[in-house]
């Protein structure tokens, strides 16, 4: 379908353009205003000024890059999780995967508090791994309790997610209270979903996960399309459903964990982005997946800008901005479900 492809391309580039616009606004505005020229000059290294360098490269840019990566990751992972579970209300946050990854990372901060403080390469590279363990634990529990008669019961799925989310949240809270005050503050801010101390090392820590796993998912888009059919017919087509589903789930949990390890549990992005993408471009995952990623990217970059500027000088956790926007959208989605 050349038409659809054309439409998809257009939408994809419009999204990228909007994200760039958001990035531009985010780069130039803040406690320290800069002109476009200043920004471009700093980025292109034309007569660099030390002050501008500091603001752009040490403060604003890493944060924006993280917001974009996290948004992209969550959008993609949300699409895959909705696809696997065939449940339009599934979202890594609602299913407790965020909480699982979060609890594991808080545990990591708790046991290696000192090392964490110096933000060494070792600890930053290890954090997503810990997150992955927690995310897998949460997913394992979900499977254990929501799996009935060889299928994920969509009703149960969300309830189990809510339960696991609050249980692991309690674990995280418990551990964070046992920490020393410095670590605690970090854990607390970070648990609400906040891009608190963006630096290039964090980006380096999460980037490999996205670079490796997103292509894996992109190669599996046709499987995601097939999974929307009934279990029976997919099996009749000779697709090893279980195996494919596990690969998809593992990859998306890996992405979510990498995101959670730098930005905490940001909910609702994985819920909203895929829905918006599907509305715009239809149901083919070949298009939905990348589009959902760019929509997530735009959402988090914009929300982070709101979070850091609207209430200046106080910063809001970006997770809170997203849930204030996300909840009404969630209700809108619920209202469109069939009786």
């Amino acid at each position, binding site marked *: 379908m050349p038409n659809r492809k054309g439409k998809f391309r257009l939408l994809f580039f419009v999204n990228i353009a909007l994200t760039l616009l958001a990035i531009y606004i985010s780069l130039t505005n803040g406690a320290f205003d800069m002109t476009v020229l200043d920004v471009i000059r700093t980025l292109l290294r034309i007569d660099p000024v030390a002050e501008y360098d500091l603001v752009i490269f040490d403060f604003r840019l890493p944060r924006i890059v993280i917001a974009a990566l996290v948004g992209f990751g969550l959008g993609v992972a949300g699409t895959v999780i909705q696809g696997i579970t065939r449940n339009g209300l599934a979202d890594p946050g609602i299913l407790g995967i965020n909480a699982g990854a979060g609890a594991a990372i808080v545990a990591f901060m708790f046991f290696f508090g000192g090392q964490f403080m110096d933000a060494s390469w070792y600890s930053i590279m290890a954090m997503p791994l810990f997150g992955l363990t927690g995310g897998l634990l949460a997913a394992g529990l979900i499977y254990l309790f929501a799996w009935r008669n060889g299928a994920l019961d969509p*009703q149960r799925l969300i309830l189990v997610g809510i*339960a696991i989310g*609050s249980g692991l949240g309690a674990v995280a809270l418990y551990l964070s*209270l046992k920490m020393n005050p410095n670590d605690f503050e970090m854990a607390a801010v970070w648990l609400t979903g906040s891009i608190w101390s963006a630096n290039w090392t964090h980006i380096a820590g999460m980037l490999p996960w996205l670079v490796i796993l997103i292509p894996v998912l992109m190669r599996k888009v046709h499987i995601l399309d097939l999974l929307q059919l009934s279990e029976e017919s997919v099996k009749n087509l000779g697709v090893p459903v279980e195996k494919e589903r596990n690969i998809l789930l593992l990859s998306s949990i890996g992405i979510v964990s990498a995101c959670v390890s730098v930005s905490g549990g940001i909910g609702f992005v994985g819920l909203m982005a895929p829905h918006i993408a599907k509305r715009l471009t239809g149901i083919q995952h070949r298009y939905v997946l990348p589009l959902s990623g760019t929509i997530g990217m735009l959402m988090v970059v914009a929300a982070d800008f709101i979070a850091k500027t609207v209430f200046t000088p*106080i910063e809001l956790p970006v997770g*809170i901005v997203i849930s*204030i926007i996300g*909840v009404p959208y969630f209700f809108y989605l619920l209202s469109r*479900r069939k009786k």
Partner: protein
Amino acid sequence: MQSKKATSMIILAVSPLVILLTILLSIHYGAKPIDAGTIYQAFSAFDEGNVDHQIVMHSRLPRVLGALMIGAFLAISGALMQGMTRNYLASPSIMGVSDGSVFAVTLCMVFLPSATSVTMITMSLIGSALAVAMVLAFSRLLPNGLTPVGMAVIGTITGTFLSSISAAISTYFQVSQNVSFWYNARLHLLEPELVKLAVPFAIVGIVIALLLSKSITILSLGDEVSRGLGQRTVMVKVLATAAVVILTGISVALAGKIAFVGLIIPHITRFLVGLDYRWIIPCAGLLGGIFLGLSDVLSRFMNSPFETPIGVVTAFIGVPFFLYLIYKRGGGKHA
């Protein structure tokens, strides 16, 4: 109507003893253990100059009484909600009621910084009512909203929304620290004055609950049956909701969000005493009080000498139970 009258009688008869024991345990254990003799003296011959006596009367006693009361209120609220909506997942925390209270209390702290305790309690009640109204309205309006799953999801999401807005407001006006007291449910910061103030509200709520208990039993058979038996269904539901709002509202005003008590205690009570709410409501109240009182004692051991928020303790006990319920009942329809 199956009801296990004997078990109910046993619970009613044994509870006072267990409650007394809980009170003693709770007064005894803490950062500084206080022996039985001193506790006795504190009650019989209170000495203003004795630090131990001060601790007993001004810190530990209000705390344990608060825990007992809050446990009872939450359990009764949960029992009422489960009976009324015939929804086995209905409970104050899952339905976002507590978040409504937190929301109102946050507003109160920002815009009425000099508010008295009475105002705070009233605001907390208004907040609970707001959340209940929102959740019930959405449940009616949205497809599948009245199923257990639907309502739980709507409640959780409404709760997320209200608590996000509270967080934004409290961050903006820099009252986060004060508000976090309400969130983290620290019973050890309980104010004795507040406990006293809560009593009249509690009496009203509990009396309504007890008076309605028979009607709730009928309601739990279904709206049709209930109407067929000539019951004024709407009236009963409105009154029961009012009781829920009052009891949950004061609980949050006293100690913040404490999850799962209102969910699990009514189930355990129904298992023990049967389906007659004339027994369920008083027994749930007693068991809830004891449960929270003992959880509070436990919370002091989990990370001594530091306090662990009681919500963490109840979550550790409540989550496995919640999962068990889901596993057993799944998306089933009725309580």
